């Protein structure tokens, strides 16, 4: 039975990867999780220079999910290359580097720095973080801006480019088309949904940033709908994510149109989730007579 998929000419041994920001660069979780078993490791967003991120509390639990407003804290591209990419050298899996920035120039600087890094198979451009003031989601909620940043990144990137889309838009189809028009090789969605939680006893926001990004099983039906809509709007491959907890959830996303899937906050609940999900997808295929996972992509 075949679980492997191909995205922009890159072969993935299976369609399962982590959602950026929920797995670091794999360093910490490698004590528990065999990174070689994953379709890819998607690293946490990295910028041209270190970012401090937001004040705490940055985290709040919500029904069947969580909110976060980390603010894309990251050590900057220099340390990322020296430490994180070096660590990933020894593993037999694809590496997708998530790139963030406040301005076009900042995105381009990181993309250029990664040009000669052979350890990096793909780039994922974060134009959808709801928790940073400038850049981030601003690029991902206006189709014209999204198309422009996509084409700028494409001009400067050596690796295939995935644009990570925000669900905080009126029409995800329009955004998917804008990314495709800009030359994106693939799109990934959904990033988190902008949300708010109030501690009624303290009469304060649960998260210092006031708003945060909602993730987890609570958002899964929204994500499945958006993956379905986006994959019908464009010809480029879609990587689906949003509350995946099981092989069945992953299959649902693929039937909606995703060619690969990412597991996000559920890694915090169950650090072995991705390995289990790969096994469950295999079992599903065996039990239902699917010989190649590609058969089910967009089958509904």
């Amino acid at each position, binding site marked *: 039975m075949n679980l492997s998929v191909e995205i922009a000419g890159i072969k993935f041994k299976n369609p399962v990867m982590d959602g950026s920001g*929920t797995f670091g660069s794999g360093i910490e979780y490698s004590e528990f999780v065999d990174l070689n078993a994953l379709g890819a490791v998607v690293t946490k967003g990295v910028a041209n220079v270190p970012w401090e991120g937001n004040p705490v509390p940055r985290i709040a639990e919500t029904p069947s999910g969580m909110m976060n407003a*980390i603010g894309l804290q990251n050590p900057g591209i220099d340390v990322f290359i020296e430490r994180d990419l070096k660590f990933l050298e020894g593993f037999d899996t694809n590496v997708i580097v998530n790139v963030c920035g406040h301005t076009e120039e900042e995105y381009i600087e990181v993309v250029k720095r990664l040009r000669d890094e052979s350890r990096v198979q793909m780039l994922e451009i974060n134009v959808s973080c709801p928790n940073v003031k400038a850049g981030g989601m601003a690029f991902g909620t206006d189709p014209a801006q999204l198309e422009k940043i996509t084409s700028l990144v494409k001009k400067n990137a050596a690796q295939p480019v995935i644009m990570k889309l925000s669900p905080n838009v009126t029409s995800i189809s329009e955004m998917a088309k804008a990314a495709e028009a800009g030359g994106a090789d693939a799109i990934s969605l959904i990033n988190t949904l902008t949300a708010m939680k109030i501690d009624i006893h303290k009469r304060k926001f649960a998260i210092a940033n006031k708003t945060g990004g909602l993730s987890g*099983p609570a958002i899964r039906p929204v994500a499945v709908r958006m993956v379905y809509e986006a994959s019908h709007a464009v010809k480029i491959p879609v990587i689906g994510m949003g509350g995946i907890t099981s092989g069945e959830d992953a299959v649902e996303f693929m039937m909606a149109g995703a060619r690969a899937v990412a597991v996000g906050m559920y890694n915090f609940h169950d*650090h072995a989730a991705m390995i289990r999900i790969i096994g469950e997808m295999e079992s599903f295929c065996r039990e239902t007579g699917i010989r190649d996972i590609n058969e089910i992509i967009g089958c509904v």
Partner: protein
Amino acid sequence: MEKKIINEESLIIKTEKIAEGVFSTAFKTGIAEKCLPGQFVMVKTKSDSHLLKRPISICESDISEGTIRLVYRTVGYGTKELSLAKEGESFELLGPLGNGFPIDEAQDKKNILLIGGGIGAPPLLSLARALRLTGIDKSCITAVLGYSGMKAGIFLNEEFGKEANVIMSSDDGSVGTRGTVMDAIKERELKPDIIYACGPMPMLKAIKLYAEERFIPAYISLEEKMACGVGVCLGCMVKTKEKDNHSKVNNARVCTEGPVFEAGAVEI
């Protein structure tokens, strides 16, 4: 590579209520083999709608028995669920996590002060035991324990009494000095040459100031909302004086670089 962190379905061997809203749960677990005082575990809930693991400090660990004991206040779903669990039930525990208190720093000290504010006291009990095991005399260790008062109940004071001189304070004056742990320290004119503390943020701020004014080394254990407990999510940051070696900014992970920090190194 030997695993430093263990994830194990761990059996509850004893649960008891030790004060109003304060519970003690002992587990049989492989985590017991490796714990240092001040480290913590992440407790996985059994609920499909409460998905984040709960960080709880380790109050005691016993290598020969293979047990650890958690003492916690019921504040939300996770701690409540744990408090209601009976002997024979099990929970998935991830640990030991974090750095723990630096014990070597106390070796040549004659006036070691442990300060536990409310539910901050539990990790200091394992520290007191560990200090005694290094040969430090009981007379060199003072534990200052702060409570709200007799109505809510006092806890762990008798166990601390076996390892240290115990001084108490309470908000209502029903036990020990009326006021905070700092009031008790000033009233007794304690002259510590090293401080270890865990408790609410206003208390830790006061201790940081007290220690800095007197040039006393102080180690404080911090608490922050966290999602992963192992250094991945970057949820539980504390502002640091110097650039942190991992983050490359003035931020350190409470779960990994902490939860214990040298008081002067953090901006709280």
